[in-house]
């Protein structure tokens, strides 16, 4: 996972709430067995509408998505994160994210910056007044900047640290291998296994 400290990119406004993961990447794109190549599935159904915001040429290279509340609800598909990343996004800004989506994003280095809804509205207005404008995301100081506006964002300290260091979760957990062994040894015998029983 690449280290994430600060980042600046063109921002796109998505004035919709409850953007569920079926919209971010429809199920038909989930049949792949690879980890990449999901860009064509990103908002696939909405992109069929020529008027959809991400179809505007000025947002063709957008890397920061400013979305309405409850972004990423629904299915646990991590493909939603991969699709957003493959499409070019490095950061999603919203006033509320679904838990599983936010967890998945942290695993693969997509920053989800939680900004108050007032701030989201400010960003939408700035972008719409000046399409193509960039937003800077400063993970170290937990700030997003757009022209004259600077807004704080929330992210938990542990995720922030992991993103900034680019650390792999499995490696971090395996530091506790002895504790896992000890826990397993103490588990009660009535706990089931999946092995076939006569």
């Amino acid at each position, binding site marked *: 996972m690449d280290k994430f400290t600060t980042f600046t990119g063109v921002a796109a406004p998505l004035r919709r709430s409850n953007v569920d993961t079926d919209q971010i990447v429809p199920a038909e794109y989930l*049949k792949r*067995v*690879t980890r990449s190549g999901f860009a064509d599935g990103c908002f696939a159904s909405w992109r069929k509408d020529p008027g959809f915001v991400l179809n505007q040429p000025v947002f063709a290279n957008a890397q920061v998505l400013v979305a309405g509340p409850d972004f990423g609800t629904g299915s646990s598909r991590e493909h939603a994160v991969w699709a957003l990343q493959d499409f070019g996004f490095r950061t999603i800004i919203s006033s509320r994210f679904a838990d599983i989506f936010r*967890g998945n994003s942290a695993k693969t280095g997509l920053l989800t910056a939680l900004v108050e809804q007032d701030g989201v509205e400010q960003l939408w207005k700035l972008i719409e007044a000046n399409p193509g404008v960039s937003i800077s995301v400063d993970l170290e100081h937990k700030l997003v900047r757009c022209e004259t506006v600077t807004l704080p964002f929330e992210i938990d300290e542990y995720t922030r640290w992991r993103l900034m260091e680019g650390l792999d979760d*499995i490696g971090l957990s395996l530091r506790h291998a002895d504790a896992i062994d000890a826990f397993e040894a103490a588990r009660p015998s*009535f706990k*089931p296994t*999946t092995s076939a029983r006569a």
Partner: protein
Amino acid sequence: MGRTLAEKLWNDHVVARADGEPDLLFIDLHLVHEVTSPQAFDGLRAAGRRVRRPDLTLITEDHNIPTLDIDKPIADPISAEQVRVVRRNAQEFGIRIFSMGDLENGIVHVVGPQLGLTQPGMTVVCGDSHTSTHGAFGALAFGIGTSEVEHVLATQTLPLKPFKTMAINVDGELAPGVTAKDIVLAIIAKIGTGGGQGYVLEFRGAAIRALSMEGRMTICNMSIEAGARAGMIAPDETTFEYLKGRPHAPQGADWDAALAYWRTLVTDADASFDAEVHIDAASLSPYVTWGTNPGQGLPLSANVPSPADAKDDNDKAAIARALEYMGLTAGTPLRDIPVDMVFVGSCTNGRIEDLRAAAEVLKGRKVADSVHMLVVPGSVKVRQQAIAEGLDRIFMDAGVDWRFAGCSMCLAMNPDKVPSGKRAASTSNRNFEGRQGPGSRTHLVSPQVAAATAVVGRLASPADLEG
């Protein structure tokens, strides 16, 4: 200070705890299916890691499999590839798999409970958001993403951030014809699709205690539709009765030891929740959704809402957009909405009790000519049970398209889809745009409402069929 059920389960599974880091929790059961696992196994291979506990891992094929012609190769080459890959991974890593055609095959969240693998006091994960289903047994059960699937395969643990607890108290008694599905649709309509965010929900109260395990699973299944991390119900005699004698339930002395532990799995009287919600069961009636998220639901007796009813601008835009997508006009009575298709099945309502409920309504009646109705059992075992009880005859006599087991029409990943522009009443869990196929329109309902709707041809409850 007492502890909630969720806090007890959490504490019983902490492997390692350090300041500034998430707790590392042990996972008792890891369920795997073909859609969210291939990249996880690839990750293991790339890192040279093995599956730490294949004996706590189980694979089923469900999302992609067809519900017709299951004796033939899967026609869709991409679905076939996904199933081929999961079988190869099962073999390479030594994990038990229930493939299409196996007697134990079925939807992952139907298979775990019916085998008795899901038990009180366990941590259960799966790369599927509806893993919350297993919380019905007093387990801490939640959906995870593919990176986490890889993490659990490699370590049998997960680093997890703390959660908040919310009590959903459903007191009183349900009126006849009102079901677990109506309770959960009413809860989501009340607290919203983000209302449970960050919380583990505990469903409590007389109306919950009165539910069967099937009904409890329906409710916990849809916890995720309220945005919750998990949903759970404290185990009781109903739970123990359901588990006793199942293939993977404890036996002999283990059963007694397990039972003694399970009986401690209740929220202490002096424990407090971070939030509480109250619902009066007696006030509920059959619910249906009218919009494009599960929180957009109303009693069947209501009318399609108007953007003018919205509480804020965001909500106003959401209602307007939902009505446009759904092809509905504000003010229309929900009972006047005609449907083209009816789907009974899924991990929400694909269990034997759900099929019995649909059959009871359909017995001696016919599905309307304008309606195509699918009944899809959640597992092969459910299908066999339905046949043993003669439910298949009732369905076929009524003109139902009676299928083999699978996820089917819930999610448009297999041949069963709702065509573009067509409207379905579905017992599944999501009414998102395009969920049941591109352009499909979904109304979420209970099995009883689904069956009555199929007969009438418009959204209806069994009471509408009488007289």
